[in-house]
């Protein structure tokens, strides 16, 4: 969430509201999933259907190392969730194809409007993601200095480590 005001300025965040409030991260042991819940963020245009700025609630669900599903407050139907999913298909250790779905309640926007909205967001993310160094995900705690806002990122790294995932990750010794 911390990147919203700076990468998706005017859409998913504004620089005057950059604080990431405390949220919860849990490991669903039965299904071996990570959930980040109670995530709240001020968004000027949370979805194509938005009529103005709102506090949006998110749930991030990680059912698989290469999949993520976002549940977020539906602007047009209080109490319902809009869903956005990303399925990552690795092609090399530092390259992948991203497949996605968007499931939203929206009576006013066409499918093409929704595609444009999401592709705009994805391409704003892409330039940031592809310029991160190291290109492979660091798993060693000595490599990064996380903050409280990174709780879900830390849980993801721990989960990968606990499951012995090494594909596409950076180990500390590789940096030397």
């Amino acid at each position, binding site marked *: 969430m911390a990147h919203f005001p700076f990468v998706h300025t005017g859409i998913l965040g504004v620089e005057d509201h950059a604080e990431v409030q405390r949220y919860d991260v849990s490991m669903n042991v039965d299904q071996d999933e990570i959930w980040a819940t109670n995530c709240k963020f001020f968004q000027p245009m949370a979805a194509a259907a938005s009529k103005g700025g709102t506090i949006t609630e998110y749930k991030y669900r990680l059912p698989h190392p290469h999949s993520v599903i976002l549940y977020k407050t539906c602007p047009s139907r209080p109490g319902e969730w809009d869903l956005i999913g990303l399925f990552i298909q690795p092609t090399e250790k530092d390259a992948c194809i991203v497949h996605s779905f968007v499931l939203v309640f929206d009576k006013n926007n066409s499918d*093409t409007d929704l*595609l444009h909205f999401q*592709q705009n967001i994805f*391409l704003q993310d*892409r330039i940031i993601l592809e310029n991160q160094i190291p290109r492979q995900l660091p798993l060693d705690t000595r490599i990064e200095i996380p903050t409280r806002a990174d709780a879900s990122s830390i849980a993801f790294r721990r989960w990968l480590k606990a499951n012995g995932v090494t594909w596409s990750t950076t180990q500390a010794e590789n940096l030397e």
Partner: protein
Amino acid sequence: MKLYDYVLSGNCHKVRLLLKFLDLTCDLEPVDFFPGREHKSPVFLQINPLGQLPVLEDGDLRLRDAQAILVYLAHKYDASGQWYPMNDPEALGRVAQWLAFAENITATSSAARLHDVLGYNLDVDAARADAHTLFRVLEDHLAHQEFNGQHWLAGPLPTIADIACFPYTALAGDGGIDTFIYPAIERWLHHFSRLRGFYNMPGMNYFA
């Protein structure tokens, strides 16, 4: 006015930027370029038989081709004559020269980006190499302009030539083409991003 538009199209962004620079309002008609390939559909081929974006409609006029649309909008709506210097033959020739150059940037830099971003099947190594050949020419020209105290492609002020060449130079990184090795191009991109009314499209990160 109506612009048939794709949010990730640099050619559409050329038109969107000039509309903004001239304080013009225009309805955007989103076209499902990816993944729907709506621009190649029978319905859209009636609008543009070349199956390309952007297309502008203004009254009875329907115009395709980003550069052609820039010429039309600037000549019709910019009373100052800055963006399309109609009364200066030499400047007009230089503008036309760089409008043609912009087409070549599209054919190379934009092609590499379509390969990397949308998975188009094409020879990306050739596209990148050809883009670098063009960017070396652009770099030399802009450096030469700087020696003469000028910061724009066709003269002392920005014209539609700068608008036409800007997006696919600024977005070259999306196609794996590093422009940081061209200092005069980088300075020109930053100058351009400070024009009143400028705004980023995804893949650009210019901050005032």
